[in-house]
């Protein structure tokens, strides 16, 4: 039930509504909980609301972190 799906904002209209593209479906949502959301950004959509603006750089960073972790793990395995 806490399911959230990423959608990209393709238009923003007055009174805090926006249309997002979720897997090629266009749905109208409220952005009242993410007032800073901009056209083109990815947001996490839940129950007809954008709940958070997603950060693509963070996704990259997450991969970098994974690689970093791998290095740390290697150090650990050598120690053992």
């Amino acid at each position, binding site marked *: 039930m*806490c399911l959230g799906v990423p959608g990209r904002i393709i238009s923003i209209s007055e009174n805090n509504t926006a249309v997002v593209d979720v897997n090629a479906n266009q749905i109208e949502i409220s952005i009242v*909980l993410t007032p800073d959301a901009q056209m083109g950004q990815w947001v996490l959509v839940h129950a007809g*609301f954008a709940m*958070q603006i997603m950060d693509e750089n963070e996704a990259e960073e997450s991969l970098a972190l*994974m690689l970093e972790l791998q290095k740390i*793990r290697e150090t*650990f395995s050598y120690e053992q």
Partner: protein
Amino acid sequence: MNNNKAIMQDMIREIQTETQSISMMEVCGTHTMAIAKSGIRDLLPDNIKLISGPGCPVCVTAQGDIDAVIELVNQQDLILATFGDMMRVPGTSSSLQEARGKGADIRVVYSPMDAVEMASNYPTRKVVFLGIGFETTAPTVGASIEAARAMQVKNYFVLSLHKLVPPALEVIFSDPDIKVDALICPGHVSLVIGLNPYRELAEKYHKPCVITGFDDEDILQGILMILLQFKQNQARAEIQYRRAVKEKGNPVAQSVLKRVFKEVDTRWRGLGQIPGSGLEISDEYSDYNARYKFAIPDIEDIPIKGCSCGEILTGKISPHDCPLFGSACNPLNPIGPCMVSHEGACAAYYRYTPLRGEIE
């Protein structure tokens, strides 16, 4: 993506080298589903256990509360609007679906805003939205109440059964019968609440808490981040799911929660009464509170005969340990909510691992 695949294989290999016995609870029903689907549980060495937790909002709704809703829907002029997940949850005498079959006006909506619109379209009816869900969902319901006030819609009401996750985690960590060494924390609840509540938990109980995303690689990485903390003999709260979860959470959503709701004691299936774990509509918005508008009976929880959902929700047993699992209880004929809800542990296990038992 191939790169990711290689990294995933490395991650699995790395996890398999772990020798300590560690049980991690995946708190969230969406994780339970994702983990069951990925088969990750089977790839882990025997000493690392993944236990399903209380994070399925439909499943933890108390039986008495479900029975009260079933009584409510028979009131005249009432339309009950609900998320679809609630329709088949068995009450003591019937489910919402059966009540609808007998003539109650119950409509499934995707968003609480649809229910506000419905109220504005049917000014002579009273539309009650059934507020189920954790911190992910409660702000959307709060925002719908604020929108109803702004639109001067006066026939929209909410029956709030919303619950807060951290107080339930506190109960899990404090219960000597539940062996959980670390938490895979819910990605989407954490969008709203951020890292701080887990910092307190990690510190107080000295157990690692990692907010994790829902892709296979997210989950593996979350597990590794927990294992690393064990190697370092530390217990921190960390975010793996960085592309969506910010350290502070979503302050706008938090302020909606503060304005529209107040914290109250509430009862959970499996976990009992937990202080400060429920959200009731605040006095400021009491004209939208279905409890003030309608007589909502206070009904005792009558356990469903033979169903072990309560123990499953607290990680005490695995769905495979329930004697009814797969035989008398299956998705076509669900006996308890853990088999009804898509993200219920019984439904997830039935769909992806119907035969094997993981927790001995």
